[in-house]
Structure formats: structure tokens, C-alpha cells
């Protein structure tokens, strides 16, 4: 089946809480 697309690559995502943590630590690092 030539029309079938190739499988997509799963992009790993942090959870909402992990994202918040990363964001907070970035804000703390910046002056």
C-alpha cells in the first residue's frame, strides 16, 4: 500500500508538573 504513511516518531513530553518545575528552576536561574 503505497499511500500508507510511515510511522510517526513519538515525541516524549514531560508531565505538566515536571514542566512547571523546569520552568520555575529556569526562572530562578535567570537574574
Amino acid at each position: 500500500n503505497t499511500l500508507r504513511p510511515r510511522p510517526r516518531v513519538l515525541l516524549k513530553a514531560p508531565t505538566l508538573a515536571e514542566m512547571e518545575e523546569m520552568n520555575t528552576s529556569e526562572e530562578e536561574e535567570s537574574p
Partner: protein
Amino acid sequence: RQVTVQRKEKDFQGMLEYHKEDEALLIRNLVTELKPQTLAGTVPCLPAYVLYMCIRHADYVNDDLKVHSLLTSTINGIKKVLKKHNEDFEMTSFWLSNTCRLLHCLKQYSGDEGFMTQNTPKQNEHCLKNFDLTEYRQVLSDLSIQIYQQLIKIAEGVLQPMIVSAMLENESIQGLSGVKPTGYRKRSSSMVDGDNSYCLEAVIRQMTSFHTVMRDQGLDPEIILQVFKQLFYMINAVTLNNLLLRKDVCSWSTGMQLRYNISQLEEWLRGRNLHQSGAVQTMEPLIQAAQLLQLKKKTPEDAEAICSLCTSLSTQQIVKILNLYTPLNEFEERVTVAFIRTIQAQLQERNDPQQLLLDSKHMFPVLFPFNPSSLTMDSIHIPAYLNLEFLSEV
């Protein structure tokens, strides 16, 4: 509303390209600094569509870092704007609509056949080619739940101070004040400072305003229904809890006024096509309490009628209302101890909850059903006042 959708040149494939260094500007102009009012007249959820078109281009050029970065910045931007406007119903509703729409887009254009059943062939061309964003969909779904909770908290904060006076104290039925229990006339315990009384129309006006905002912003109809089910539950709980604690409102006349108020709320739901939300069902304990105040409370037959009617009230609540019941005048008798004992005997088989009061903070779990859009990406026009001229149409 006027929807600004115009057909673009035929070579626009519904993707938007930007330089990596412009990502912060994109998030600032489209998320953190955006005022929902400026988008009146454009297609609802425009920011979500613009973001999807940017994601799609990063996917098209197979740039996973750009996709990661844009989604992370978007989510953090939305969280920032919600934190800053945590008492602003319009802003919170706006970002709930957009977050849900972005989530729907990531499903509709995921390439997963289960989400593509309603797509046109043109829409199928706009699916992601390289990346599976399932995990980001989960993050957006969690974020939507947080925004929904903030929205309910804001709406409840606005409505709660109005409920007791509007539902129990305000008399809109002509001539009813003449049949208030003796000694309690004109009592207004909750109005210590100034005039804090509200009529039911004020509550209805406020709900109409909430509904208009959510509808105009394109919030999914299923979510709007859940918002009103939640708000009606809160109205029910706050009113019933007050009734269960205040002797002065446990009277035939308050029962009459209460039933009238509930019917006005039901009528409002029907007028706004919200009657299928389950909102009225959440009011059932209050409806029964209003009926209990109006029923005769003397003979064993009356006891039988009360027991078969009050199925949404616990034995403890029924007994409490009967104990608090205040006769209208010297000609109406108090509820006798024997009558209350008859009720208790009839209801002893019931396995009722022990607490007297309802949990007014209880929240129903929210669901965000998939709601694909019929819009095609290449038909979306970005107004110049959004200052997104650095985005190039591809």
C-alpha cells in the same frame, strides 16, 4: 458573530513558518499579552489554529526540537496568563476554549484514523507527517482540567454571595410577605453591612453573561453544559444548607417562593438550550425540600406522601426541616413529635449518608469529548493587529 474567514491563495498549505528566535515573540503576542476582546469578529479559537499551523510546519520540516520548544512555551505561556488573570472569567474561558481546540487539532490531524472520520480530504492533507504528539495531548488534557477548575472557581466566587438572598430571602411573588411566619418578617441576617441583597434576576443575568462569553469564544458545547451542571449543583447545595440551618426560612411561604425560583432557573436553562446538562437533576434535593415545606404534615397518610416524595433528601435532612418548620400563624400547628417519629420509623430501612449538610465544594469530574472542527487550515486569516507578520504562510 461575523466570522472573518477568507480563502487564501491556492498555494497556501495551511502551515506557518517562523525563525526559532521569534518563538518568544510569537508566545508573547499570541498568548501572554493577547486580549480576548481584540479577537471579536475573528474565527473562534484563532490562537489554537495559529499554534497548530506552526506546529505543523515544524513537523513538516522534521524539526523535533522546534516542536518540543513551541509546545512547552505555549503551555507555560498559557499557565502564566491564567495565573495572572486568576479572577478573570473571560480570560480563563478564552484559554479553556483555545487549549481544548489545540487538543482537538492534535487529535484531528494526528493521522490516527479514529480521529479522522469526519475530516474532508483537504483536512487529511493537513495531518502531521513525522511526529506522534500523544504525550503532549495528555499534557494539554491535564492543563484543560486545571483551567476548567479555575473557571468554575471564578464563577462560583461570583455567584455564591448572591445565592442565599436570591433563592431564600427575596420575595418576588406578590403578597407572599403577608404570609411570612410571625416574628420573622423582614429578617435579613446575612445583610449586616449595607444592602447585600440580590434578586433571582441578578443571578440569572450573571449566568447569562457567563454563557454568552463561553458560547462566543467557541468553548465546546459539552463543556458549557458541564459548567452549568456544576454551578446549579452549587446553587442547590448552598441554598439547601442554609435552609437546614435557618428556622426563619423553613416555612410554607419560603417553600412556595423557592419552588417558583427553581422554575425560573429551569426556564432559563430551557431558553438557553442547556436543559440536557443534568443541571436540574442536581437541584432535586432542593426541589424536594421546597415541596416538603408545602406538604401537609399531620396524618399518617401525609407521612407516607412525604416519605415517597423525598427520595433525594436523607432522613436526617427531612427530620431537620420538619423540626425547624415554622407555622405561618397561630392557626397553623407545629409539626408534632409523633408525626416526626412516624417519618423516622418509615425511613429507618434507608441507608442514608450521615452528614446533614451537602458538600458545596464537591466537583463533578469533567470530560472533554473530541470535537473536530470543520474549518480547513488554509482558510484561516490572521488579522494584522495580532502583530504576527513574522509568520510566513507555507
